[in-house]
């Protein structure tokens, strides 16, 4: 388990991260979510030991020098253009404490795992954006760290590359605890155990997706009619409190009422053409906007 307590970072008079505390369970997948400038990169850099916190501590159960147990992928990884992929990973493996004898073997293994098997002898200057991201992941996991820190691992990729990297991360979760920052919420929605919402350097909300959803969700039923007149006609006749937007009528749900069955029963009394009826959940994006907007 990784415990972060009262983490604070100031540059001069400006406080970028203030009093951030959270814990990461072993093998969990946690997303740091927040708008640009919320302090995501600063937090990850402090966990990686690149920046010294002004205040606060980062500790890992039973481990003294946590730098040995951390893998870090920056948002814009920059590689030595004159090294090949294999040489680069071999070097980082050795620097992480893997013996010279095993380093090459481990490097080849990890490059195959991230899907760069055919490019290991190419110079990194010839790698595409997606390949660089894979190489970045390879250097972060070659020494099998307990904690994997990823700064916007998929933001710069196209949908296909994004999908592939997320699948890779899913496989990695079996061995490591993963903390990653993102502003692409679909990715977070899909596979994250814990969400940390950041705003102006502070954690404003944390919990699992379901917990946060329950807290912020305003449940409603969305009915789509064929014509605008039908929507307004229905809204004026029904006994539930409604809101009309063009051909769509929203019914607010209070204390679990009305239920879907009640609404559908009522609708069957009218001659209106209903195209679609659904119980709406807030998307993570809408929750995000609610949490981080002032």
């Amino acid at each position, binding site marked *: 388990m990784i415990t972060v307590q009262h983490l604070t970072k100031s540059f001069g008079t400006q406080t970028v991260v203030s009093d951030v505390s959270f814990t990461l369970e072993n093998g969990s997948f946690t997303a740091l979510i927040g708008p640009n400038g919320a302090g995501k990169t600063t937090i990850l850099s402090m966990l990686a*030991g*690149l920046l*010294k916190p002004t205040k606060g501590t980062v500790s890992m159960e039973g481990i003294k020098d946590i*730098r040995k147990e951390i893998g870090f992928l920056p948002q814009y*990884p920059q590689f*030595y253009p*004159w090294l090949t992929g294999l040489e680069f990973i071999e070097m980082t493996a050795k*620097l992480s404490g893997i013996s*010279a004898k095993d380093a090459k073997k481990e490097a080849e293994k990890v490059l195959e795992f991230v899907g760069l098997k055919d490019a290991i002898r190419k110079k990194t200057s010839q790698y595409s954006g997606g390949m660089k991201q894979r190489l970045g992941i390879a250097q972060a996991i070659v020494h099998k760290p307990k904690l994997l820190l990823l700064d916007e691992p998929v933001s710069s990729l196209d949908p296909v590359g994004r999908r592939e990297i997320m699948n890779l991360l899913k496989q990695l979760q079996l061995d490591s605890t993963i903390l990653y920052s993102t502003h692409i919420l679909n990715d977070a929605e899909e596979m994250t155990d814990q969400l940390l919402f950041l705003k102006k350097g502070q954690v404003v909300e944390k919990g699992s997706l379901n917990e946060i959803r329950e807290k912020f969700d305003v449940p409603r039923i969305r009915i789509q009619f064929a014509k605008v007149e039908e929507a307004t006609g229905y809204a004026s006749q029904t006994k539930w409190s409604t809101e009309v937007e063009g051909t769509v009528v929203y019914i607010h749900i209070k204390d679990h009422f009305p239920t879907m069955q009640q609404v559908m029963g009522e609708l069957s009394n009218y001659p209106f053409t209903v195209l679609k009826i659904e119980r709406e959940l807030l998307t993570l994006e809408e929750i995000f906007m609610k949490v981080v907007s002032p």
Partner: protein
Amino acid sequence: MRTFTTLFQKELRESWRSFKFLWMPLLFIFLGISDPIMNYYMEDILNAVGNLPEGFTMTFPDYTPADILLASTGQFQSIGLIVLVILAAGMINRERQNGTALFLYVRPISFTALFFSKWAAINLLAVFSVILGYGASMYYTAILYGTVKPLLFIQMVASYCVWIFFATTIALMFSAMFKTALSITFTVILLPIGVLIQSLIGQFWNVSPWKLADYSVQLLTQSENEYYLKTLVLTIVLTVIFMIIGVLFTRKNASTVKI
């Protein structure tokens, strides 16, 4: 130690693949042979190209081999030194500025090893180039002017290399302290311009690292110089001090790496 060998290998790969081991020695060889050849053929060159007036005679001094080697040293001290120290002045900070150093700094590495991997790489290149440069100069000097005692020649080259260590250590120290623009400025002011100042008003003091190169050549004539040893020791002591400062700043400024 393993960190050092790993990083040293990386530095050598970079020097090798960017052809530094080709052009730097070539530069020093070129500088080394230019003086013996130019001086020897100066009369012929003037006769061939110059519109010298009828009856004009010029007497050329009789150079000794030591004079020629001193002239070659002057070449190394101006052009060769500038190229070498500018290279060194960007070794640590450039990696921080473009973000490549990040992958080193997130690992449990020793910053002493990091500093000395770069020190060793640049000085291997420098010593290699200096030996070839002096070798080339000596070769033509021996053919055209005469030889010097081999042992004294070796002493001179070794002594000159101590000065080169001093120069690259200062450049690396600035490289650890400042961003590239600033570190190159300071390095150029302190080293090539320092050498220039030394040659202009250097007669007012006797012990200074900037004198070491000239004193090294004087070893050839075997004239007793009571200041040589003091200068040598001072240079070595300052080099060690600058190394320590360099390592400290390499560690301190690690957090300035572009993330």
